[in-house]
């Protein structure tokens, strides 16, 4: 089995999931640690991250993102450990709904809330790149070679 073809993919996924984790951690921390949100001279108003759309089932959406990135990160580590060729397929099962949900959030941000949250844009980007690269790997059958 040729693992070297999958290695760049998993290095990319590890890096992106760490960036996504850091981002989601920041948004979750802001949600739980800041009192009521405000607008500061150093940054934006967190208008998106503190909107009614930022909470689902009583939890901030960022927390779901945190779990998602942590799972993808753990799966990538598992591949580095066991070189299990099924891992890209597993990641695809997780990243596909995450990608669709991310697109929905981008739609809400741009057309409903009408404000930009750069932390949310960053998260949507990392999810999109993980999704596209995983689709590429699985469609090309790189994991089966």
């Amino acid at each position, binding site marked *: 089995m040729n693992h070297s073809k999958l290695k760049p993919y998993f290095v990319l996924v590890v890096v992106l999931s760490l960036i996504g984790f850091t981002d989601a*951690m920041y948004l979750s921390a802001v949600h739980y640690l800041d*009192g009521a949100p*405000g607008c500061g*001279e150093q940054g934006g108003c967190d208008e998106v991250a503190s909107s009614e759309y930022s909470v689902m089932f009583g939890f901030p959406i960022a927390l779901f993102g945190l779990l998602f990135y942590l799972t993808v990160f753990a799966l990538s580590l598992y591949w580095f450990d066991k070189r299990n060729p099924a891992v890209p397929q597993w990641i695809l099962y997780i990243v596909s709904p995450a990608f669709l949900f991310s697109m929905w959030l981008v739609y809400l941000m741009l057309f409903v809330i*009408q404000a930009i949250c750069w932390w949310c844009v960053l998260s949507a980007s990392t999810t999109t790149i993980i999704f596209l690269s995983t689709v590429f790997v699985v469609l090309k059958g790189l994991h089966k070679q």
Partner: protein
Amino acid sequence: MGKSKKTKKVNQKNIQPDKSSFKLYAGAGILIVAIAVGIIALVMSQQNEAPDAIESQQVVSADVHIKGNPDAPNQLTKYSDFGCVHCANQHVLLKEFFEEHGDNFSLQIMHFPINNNALSRMAIAAALSAGRQGQYWEMVDLIYANPTQWRSDPQSAFISFVDELGLDRDQFVADMNDEDMAYKIVQDYFEFRDMGINATPTLFLNGERVPNPRTLDQLKSTIL
């Protein structure tokens, strides 16, 4: 002896990959925890660093408008930006609060246009100009309630507010163009910034900082 040596070797071989797995997962775990701790520390250090107390008799150069009872023992001061959605939310809470407790409280808005932005300064001028015709708080309500309207097309939005309140258009436009008022709005901004105000809304009760409430009940439990 020979046999036990052999077993030892076999055991070591079995343990080897587990050790490297352990290192991989332990290293990753430490990295994740380090990121989490770092981010939490960063967020905690970023919290609104406005002073815990201010001089209650702060000199304000722009026109003064007091809501509630001006002689009330409980004086609320709110540093606020018209362009800030959270200030608008807090304004709704305070409005509800004053319907019930207006006799015992007074409220003054200190206009703090974040980063001295021109659009918010224009909204402040609109509120103060309406104030010169006796409808400051009514204009404040309209500005907070319709942010997208005046942020996208300020001139026609403010004129429509003027018509809605039945104000004299010409007088309003003349006041909006009052350079002295425009200067005082900027002067206030820099004065507040020098005091340490750097975020909105920032609320004080008799000069003591009050944490921003999320709900009316939270506001009541904090200041009553």
